[in-house]
């Protein structure tokens, strides 16, 4: 009897997973003992970290996208469609406009959604670099911004690319200095808790960088409403912050599909943090942003989780006992300007060390940006 593996989502987690499974289960796929289906709502795969560079005119959107069909193994069946529901008892996935898809092993890697509308006035009054349109609009706004108060406000936590807000203001500082505009541009960074970042060592490092580079740090700032006309951020803490150009990390949300399927609260899939198997259903896994695990929503997390789940599913298909577990491994490059970077690496409960930024690490990041497509293909 054919075992059916269904992967939902064509982002980093979905592509890496599908390719690793195709590699691990090649003979079984060739013999027809296993079917591997990737369902994704877009024919294009997007490398989201590129959006930060797009905002500063360092990359183009075209460089950030490739067809999913070009990235996944030929043995992976690809269906472009939107998953609309999961019946975890009947083990069937509903896909818009087509018949339900039965599964034996289902992996949800459907990411998260931007919901700027949760903060009134944000969509009208603020920019972001967390999507293609937002990054291009911000690029145009930045290119015309020659003086005034630039505010980067982290509203949504958790959010994708945990270091990106820090990177944005550090790059902006360097970018305006090189253009001879820094004396005319005031930069403020706000964060919702009592320090500059959720990771203590990153917060400590960033606080020092900000002080040295005249970037204002405001903590315990939780925007409640944006007044686009007056250009004021009103906070839950009862304060007001005026701006000329607002760049926000918008609120993020999980998926209704997850909540409606009973897989987790608030749209995030409840999973065992080691096995990544769903707490509330058999044969279901979650990786990437949609999985509720106590680490960052980073591409590297999806990448490492995909390897673990591929290993576990392949073991089950072969009748073996799965032993691979995810230890929370997360790796993030942190750009500290236009030509220097550092990086952090940590697992569950670890406090990462932040090394001195260097050109070498920045080049490493640029090299990774180019070689990312090998990651998506499951080769790195």
């Amino acid at each position, binding site marked *: 009897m054919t075992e059916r593996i269904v992967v939902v989502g064509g982002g980093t987690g979905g592509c890496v997973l599908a390719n690793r499974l195709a590699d691990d289960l090649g003979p079984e796929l060739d013999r027809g003992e296993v079917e591997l289906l990737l369902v994704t709502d877009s024919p294009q795969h997007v490398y989201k970290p590129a959006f930060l560079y797009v905002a500063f005119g360092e990359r183009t959107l075209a460089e950030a996208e490739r067809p999913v069909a070009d990235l996944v193994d030929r043995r992976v069946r690809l269906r472009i469609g939107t998953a609309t529901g999961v019946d975890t008892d009947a083990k069937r996935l509903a896909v818009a406009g087509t018949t339900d898809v039965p599964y034996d092993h289902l992996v949800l890697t459907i990411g998260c959604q931007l919901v700027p509308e949760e903060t009134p006035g944000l969509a009208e009054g603020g920019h972001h670099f967390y999507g293609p349109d937002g990054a291009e609009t911000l690029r145009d706004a930045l290119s015309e911004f020659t003086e005034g108060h630039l505010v980067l406000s982290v509203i949504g936590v*958790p959010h994708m690319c945990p270091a990106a807000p820090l990177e944005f203001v550090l790059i902006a500082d360097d970018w305006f200095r090189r253009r001879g505009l820094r004396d005319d541009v005031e930069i403020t960074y706000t964060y*919702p*808790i009592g320090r500059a970042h959720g990771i*203590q060592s990153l917060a400590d490092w960033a606080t020092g960088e900000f002080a040295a580079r005249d970037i204002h740090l405001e903590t315990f700032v939780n925007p*409640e409403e944006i007044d686009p006309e007056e250009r004021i951020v009103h906070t*839950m*803490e009862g304060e007001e912050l005026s701006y000329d150009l607002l760049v926000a990390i918008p609120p993020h949300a999980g998926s209704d599909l997850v909540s409606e399927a009973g897989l987790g609260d608030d749209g995030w899939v409840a999973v065992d943090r080691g096995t990544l198997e769903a707490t509330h259903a058999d044969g279901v896994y979650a990786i990437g942003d949609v999985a509720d695990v*106590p680490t960052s929503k980073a591409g590297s997390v999806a990448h490492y989780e995909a390897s673990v789940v591929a290993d576990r599913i392949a073991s089950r298909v072969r009748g073996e006992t799965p032993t691979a577990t995810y230890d929370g491994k997360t790796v993030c490059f942190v750009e500290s300007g236009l030509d220097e970077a550092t990086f952090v690496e940590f697992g569950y*409960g670890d406090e990462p060390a932040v090394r001195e930024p260097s050109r070498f690490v920045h080049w490493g990041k640029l090299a990774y940006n180019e070689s990312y497509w090998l990651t998506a293909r499951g080769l790195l």
Partner: protein
Amino acid sequence: MSAPIEADEVVDARGAACPGPLMDLIGKVRTADAGTVFELQTTDSSSSHDVPEWVEKAGHELLDIVEHDGEGYWSIYVRTA
């Protein structure tokens, strides 16, 4: 011994790392009516100082912090202003 506080809503953030527990609470407070009592359950020891700090800054009321010996978590009670 005082009677336990009855919460209107329990926010179970056990297992979440910083800033998860505080952000979970802020997310719930954002849409809550004034006078709502929350119980934030957290296994993150840093919650015992960053939650009270935020509560004070935001003008809410910290009712109590209860450590559950042997169970490895704290309950932080907050009444919204």
